[in-house]
C-alpha cells in the first residue's frame, strides 16, 4: 500500500520535460568499425583479452548467426535493421578499471546525477556513509566501469562482477554455465549476442548463502548507433538466494538503437533467484521515431529440485519490446513466477510475455501480467505454458489483465497452452478493461488532475505486480508509470 500512496506525490515531483532522462554524455567512445564480420568478433574478443575457448564460442555463434533469419512472428513492425550499419563495440575511454570512485570519469558520475536515480544509488556510488547496501555494477555503454561493495560481498563468498572479469577470475564457472540456459543456437538475437556480447553482470552465490544485499545494475545506452549486447549470467548454488535488480534509462536521440541482451539464470537445488527489471528506455518521439528496439532473451533454469525463479518486470520504455523471460522447470517441485507490468504509449509496440516449461514432477508456475496501452500503441501478451510427458502434477495459474486508455490503442492476449501430461492443471484468466470516463471524472471532481488521476488508477491496476518489486524499485516504478502515461488522456 505505501507504494501506491506516494504515486501522485511522485508524479508531481517530476520535471515537466518528460525526457529528462533523454540526453547524451560525450564521453569519447573507443569504437570498432561498423558492420559485423569474423574480424570484428576477433577484435572484440582480443580487446577484452579473452581466452581461446571463448573466442571459438563467439565464432561458432557468429557463423551460426549468418545462417539465421530475423524472426517475424511477433506483433511488431519496424523498418528493416541493417546489421552491417551498426557498431558492435564501443567502450568509454576510461576502461582501465578504476580502483575507486575518484578514478571514475567525472562525466560518468554527472550522468548518474542527471539520471536522478532515486534509489539512493547515487549515494552508494558517491560512497556516502550509511547509504543502503545496494551493490551497483554499472554498465556504462558496453563496459562495466564501476563495481562497488565487492568486498562485502566477497565476505559472504558472493561473486558479483562484470562477465569479462569473471572470464578472467572464474573461468571454470563461466565455461560451465555460459550458454547452458540460452544456447548459442537459440534464436537470431541471442545468437547475435553470443557472437558479439560486450559485457554484463556475473553473479555466483555459493551453496547455502543468502546474498546479503540486493544486487543492482544500471544499464545505459550511450554511444550513438551502437548496438548493445549485454550478457548476464547468474548462478545460485544449492540452497542459495539472490535478488537482482536491473534498471535502465536512455538518452534521447533520433536514431533507432538496437538492444539484444541475453540473461541466463541457473538455480540449483533449493535455490531461489529473484530477478527484477525496470526498463524505461527512450520510446521514440511523438511520431514514434527514434526509440530503442529491445529484443531480449531472458531465461531461467530451475535446474535443481525445489528451486525457484521469479521474474518481475516493469516495461515502460523502448519503441519496440520483444521479450519473454522464461522458466524451465526442470527440477522436481520447482517453481517459476512471472510478474509483469508493460506500459505502452505513443507509438510504442510491446510484444512480451513468458514461457513456463514444466519438465519435472510437481512443478508450479504463476503468471500475472498487466498490460496498459495508451495513445496509438500496441500491447501484446504472448505466453506459453507447457507440461512435458513426465511433468506429473504440473500446475499453472495465469492472469492477464489489459487496461486501455483511449480508443486508438490495442491490447492483445495470445496464450499458448500445451499439456502432454493429463494430470496438469492450467488455469487461465484474462480481462480487458478501460479507464472509464466516470472513474476519471470521479477523481477529477476530487481535485486530481487528469494525469494524476490516470497515474493513480493505473497504479491501482498494477498493484499486485508492484508489490512483487523490491522496495528499492517501487518509488522509481511509480514515477515511471506516471511519466510514461503523460499525455495519454485528453
Amino acid at each position, binding site marked *: *500500500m505505501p507504494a*501506491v*500512496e506516494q*504515486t*501522485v*506525490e511522485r508524479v*508531481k515531483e517530476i520535471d515537466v520535460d518528460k525526457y529528462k532522462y533523454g540526453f547524451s554524455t560525450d564521453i569519447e567512445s573507443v569504437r570498432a568499425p561498423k558492420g559485423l564480420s569474423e574480424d570484428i568478433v576477433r577484435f572484440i574478443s582480443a580487446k577484452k583479452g579473452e581466452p581461446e575457448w571463448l573466442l571459438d564460442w563467439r565464432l561458432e555463434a557468429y557463423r551460426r548467426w549468418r545462417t539465421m533469419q530475423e524472426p517475424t512472428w511477433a506483433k511488431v513492425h519496424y523498418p528493416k535493421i541493417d546489421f552491417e550499419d551498426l557498431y558492435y563495440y564501443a567502450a568509454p575511454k576510461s576502461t582501465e578499471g578504476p580502483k575507486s570512485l575518484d578514478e571514475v570519469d567525472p562525466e560518468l558520475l554527472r550522468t548518474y546525477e542527471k539520471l536522478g536515480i532515486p534509489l539512493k544509488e547515487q549515494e552508494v556510488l558517491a560512497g556516502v556513509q550509511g547509504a543502503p547496501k545496494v551493490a551497483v555494477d554499472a554498465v556504462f555503454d558496453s563496459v562495466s566501469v564501476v563495481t562497488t561493495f565487492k568486498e562485502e560481498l566477497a565476505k559472504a563468498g558472493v561473486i558479483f562482477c562484470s562477465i569479462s572479469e569473471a572470464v578472467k577470475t572464474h573461468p571454470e564457472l563461466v565455461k560451465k554455465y555460459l550458454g547452458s540456459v540460452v544456447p548459442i543456437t537459440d534464436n537470431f538475437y541471442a545468437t547475435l549476442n553470443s557472437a558479439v556480447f560486450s559485457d554484463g553482470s556475473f553473479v555466483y552465490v555459493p551453496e547455502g548463502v543468502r546474498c546479503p544485499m540486493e544486487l543492482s545494475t544500471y544499464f545505459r545506452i550511450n554511444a550513438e548507433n551502437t548496438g548493445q549486447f549485454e550478457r548476464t549470467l547468474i548462478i545460485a548454488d544449492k540452497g542459495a538466494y539472490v535478488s537482482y535488480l536491473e534498471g535502465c534509462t536512455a538518452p534521447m536521440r533520433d536514431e533507432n538503437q538496437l538492444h539484444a541482451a541475453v540473461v541466463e539464470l541457473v538455480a540449483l537445488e533449493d535455490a531461489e533467484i529473484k530477478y527484477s527489471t525496470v526498463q524505461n528506455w527512450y520510446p521514440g518521439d511523438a511520431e514514434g521515431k527514434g526509440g530503442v528496439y529491445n529484443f531480449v532473451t531472458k531465461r531461467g533454469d530451475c535446474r535443481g529440485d525445489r528451486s525457484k525463479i521469479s521474474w518481475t518486470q516493469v516495461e515502460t520504455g523502448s519503441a519496440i519490446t520483444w521479450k519473454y523471460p522464461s522458466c524451465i522447470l526442470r527440477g522436481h517441485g520447482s517453481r517459476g513466477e512471472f510478474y509483469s507490468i508493460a506500459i505502452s504509449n505513443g507509438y510504442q509496440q510491446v510484444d512480451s510475455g513468458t514461457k513456463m516449461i514444466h519438465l519435472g514432477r510437481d512443478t508450479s508456475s504463476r503468471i500475472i501480467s498487466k498490460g496498459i496501452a495508451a495513445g496509438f500503441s500496441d500491447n501484446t501478451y504472448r505466453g506459453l505454458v507447457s507440461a512435458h510427458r513426465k511433468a506429473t502434477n504440473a500446475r499453472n495459474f495465469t492472469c492477464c489483465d489489459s487496461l486501455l486508455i483511449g480508443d486508438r490503442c490495442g491490447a492483445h492476449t495470445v496464450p499458448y497452452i500445451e499439456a502432454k501430461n493429463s494430470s496438469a492443471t492450467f488455469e487461465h484468466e484474462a480481462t480487458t478493461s478501460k479507464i*472509464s*470516463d*466516470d*472513474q476519471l*471524472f*470521479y*477523481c*477529477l*471532481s*476530487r*481535485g*486530481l*488532475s*487528469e494525469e*494524476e488521476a490516470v497515474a*493513480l*488508477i493505473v*497504479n*491501482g*491496476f*498494477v*498493484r*499486485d505486480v508492484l508489490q512483487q518489486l523490491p522496495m528499492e524499485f517501487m518509488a522509481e516504478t511509480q514515477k515511471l508509470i506516471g511519466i510514461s502515461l503523460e499525455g495519454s488522456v485528453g
Partner: protein
Amino acid sequence: MLEIKNLHAKVDGREILNGLDLTIPAGEVHAIMGPNGSGKSTLSYVLAGKDDYEVTDGSVTWKGEDLLAMEPDERAAAGVFLAFQYPMEIPGVATMTFLRSAVNAVRKARGEEEYSTPDFLRTVKEKAKDLKIDMEMLRRPLNVGFSGGEKKRNEILQMSLLEPGLCILDETDSGLDIDALRIVADGVNALRSPERCMLVITHYQRLLNHIVPDRVHVLSKGRVARSGGPELALELEKSGYADYGDEATAA
C-alpha cells in the same frame, strides 16, 4: 454565493435542463426534490463539470466567478464538492491513498501546505470516527465491495476532508439505514457554516428532518417548478409530484 441563471444543458443531444434558475446565498442549505428523471443528478454533474453534459445556455456564478469556464479539478479547488449518487469504484487504489491524493491536490491548488503523513492520518482518524467509519475499511480499495451505506459515508468523509464551500449531496440518504442516516446528517450539519452553502438532493422528507433546509425547490422537467420553505417538503410527502408533472408538460 451560488447563482444559476437560465441554465440549459444537453446530454446526448437531449435537453435535460431547461431554463433552471437557482440562487443559494452563503450559509444556506437548499433542498432539491423532484420526480425521477427530472434532472437533479444532471444539475449536480453540470455543476461539477462532467464532460458529456453540454451547457447550451445560461450561466453559473460561484463566488463571483464563472464556474462553467473551469475544469472539474479547478472547481474542486474552488470549493465545489459533489457527493455522488453512485460513487465510483477504483480497484487496487487504497481508499486512504485516494483520500490523501485528493486532499493534497486540493490543498496545493489552494496554495495551502500539503499534509504531512502524521497530520493527515490524525485528521482522517478523527473524521472517520465521527462518521463511524472503520479505519480498516479505508485500507480497502476505494469503494470496491463497499456496501451502499459505506459508500455514502465515504463520500461524506471526503467532503469533510476537502473542506468545500459548495456541498452538493445527490441522494446521499438513499441506501442508508436509520442510524447511518443520523450519522451522515450529523456529519453534514457539522459542516454547516456561514461560509458554506449546500445543495441537498433528496426524495425524502426524512433526511430534511435532520438537515433542516432554508429553502426547498421542486425540480420538474429541467427547471425549478416551485420553491418554498421547509414546509414544502412536508407537503410534497403528502401530495406527491402529480401536479408538477402536469404543470411542466403544459409549460
